[in-house]
């Protein structure tokens, strides 16, 4: 039997309750430390499937701005953040760019595209 304890802080509100999750054989055994239901749900999600939206910038060729800001269209698994940043390295895009334009179709096999969050006109 593999036992593991994870300590996380709930971000549901400024209380920031310290939550403790006991995991046995990959299954949640107990969650303690929350003050309200939201904390319990947050802990479940953080332990089983933590996800984050990644934002960054990509250089623009022949644009009115040098950089265009981008984001993953939805959140992606937390453990893919690094790979996602690597995928953006050495990338360049041509102006013009519109908000919502797809920059990378399916980043790191997450099924999630990276899209532009700024419009950049051609110079």
């Amino acid at each position, binding site marked *: 039997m593999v036992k593991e304890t994870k300590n996380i802080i709930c971000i549901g509100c400024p209380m*920031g309750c310290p939550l403790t999750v006991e995991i046995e054989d990959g299954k949640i055994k107990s969650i303690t430390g929350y003050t309200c239901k939201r904390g319990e749900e947050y802990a479940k999600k953080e332990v089983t499937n933590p996800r984050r939206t990644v934002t960054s910038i990509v250089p623009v060729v022949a644009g009115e701005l040098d950089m265009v800001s981008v984001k993953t269209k939805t959140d992606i698994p937390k453990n893919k953040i690094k790979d996602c940043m690597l995928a953006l390295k050495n990338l360049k895009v041509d102006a013009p760019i519109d908000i919502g334009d797809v920059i990378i179709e399916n980043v790191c096999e997450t099924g999630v595209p990276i899209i532009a969050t700024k419009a950049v006109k051609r110079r």
Partner: protein
Amino acid sequence: MINHDIVIIGGGPAGLAAAISCYENGNQDIIILERDNSLGGILNQCIHNGFGLHTFKEELTGPEYAARYVAKVQSLGIDYRLNTMVIDISKDKVVSSINETDGLMQIQAKAIILTMGCRERSRGALNIPGYRPAGIFSAGTAQRYVNIEGYMPGRQIVILGSGDIGLIMARRLTLEGALVKMVCEIMPYSGGLKRNIVQCLDDYNIPLRLNHTVTKIFGKERVTGVMVSEVDAFRQPIPSTEEYVECDTLLLSVGLIPENELSRKAEVAINQKTQGPEVDESLSTSIPGIFAAGNVLHVHDLVDYVSMEAALAGKNAVKYVQGLLKTGLSIVIESKNGVRYTVPGTINPDNAEDITVVRFRTSDVYRDAYLSVYLDDERVMHLKKRILTPGEMEQIVIPKKWFAERPNLKKITIMVEKE
């Protein structure tokens, strides 16, 4: 001299929302003056997500949030000038600005809305001993370098101050390959949002050192390291706790100050606590016809509230031009026992909307305390709060009927109570 009914100074989220509100409330003779080369203000460099949850029920990045307002301003055909720096406002509402095409431009306004945002506190205000080597940046300047210019300020970084911009930059620089060694915070709590502490520091194992400050900066040409010390209960460094930390960059995220040089020129009364103009329920400053909203008024953490506040300022500027804003006796809002300030500071019941939103910050962290509202000596609101912290703006809502029920009301008091 050019004439416009309403001149809006600053084209950030506050200025944009104010302009849209003026238009929608019936005044189309508006102009926005913006010193930068694009509209959107500070949001253009805030590429992270977390904007607009209240307004659009989705999480947008800063540029996306701004773009929605810019598109609206453009589709309404609202006039704006970019690269136009306002250099003076007079009491009688002459706005002077300069740009390359018009040179010096003077506009006689009937009403002015101040939406100039805020600026960052600099190291000068901090007095850390050492030379002034390269490698010391305010967090917002670093944010502009990285996100707009695509240039890294350094490789090994210490951040002083745990305000949101510092936290956001800790993650941003880490993702770009820098090593963020620690975030030092002189207070026993962070001034940033909990969510940013978790997602920007904890996610990347960046230590947050509470009760710590930087006491010395090393390096002559370029920063080579900093001395970090723990502080005692009086925020004085404890010498025995000194620790040398090697780094090439020090980022300062030590607070924002409303940008009110122009307001001072127009002799607008400034509140010592917020460093922004004193305003009433209509967001009118001490000079009738000059309004203020957004970070120029008081520092906000959420842009949604900036937009809401600015919409109210816009609506009232239109009323003022129409001569519909009443003057007369106002009820004072007193902040006491842990409530540091309130915006607005006074309410004239004749102008009050059905509800007046009063925003404020507490001066300390309070757990299991009550937020109370007194009308003269009568307690009318007593809300249990599990936590109140200076890092998160609070608000209470005052219904207009309170005034009708109490025609002789003189004072509203808002305070934190233990029980």
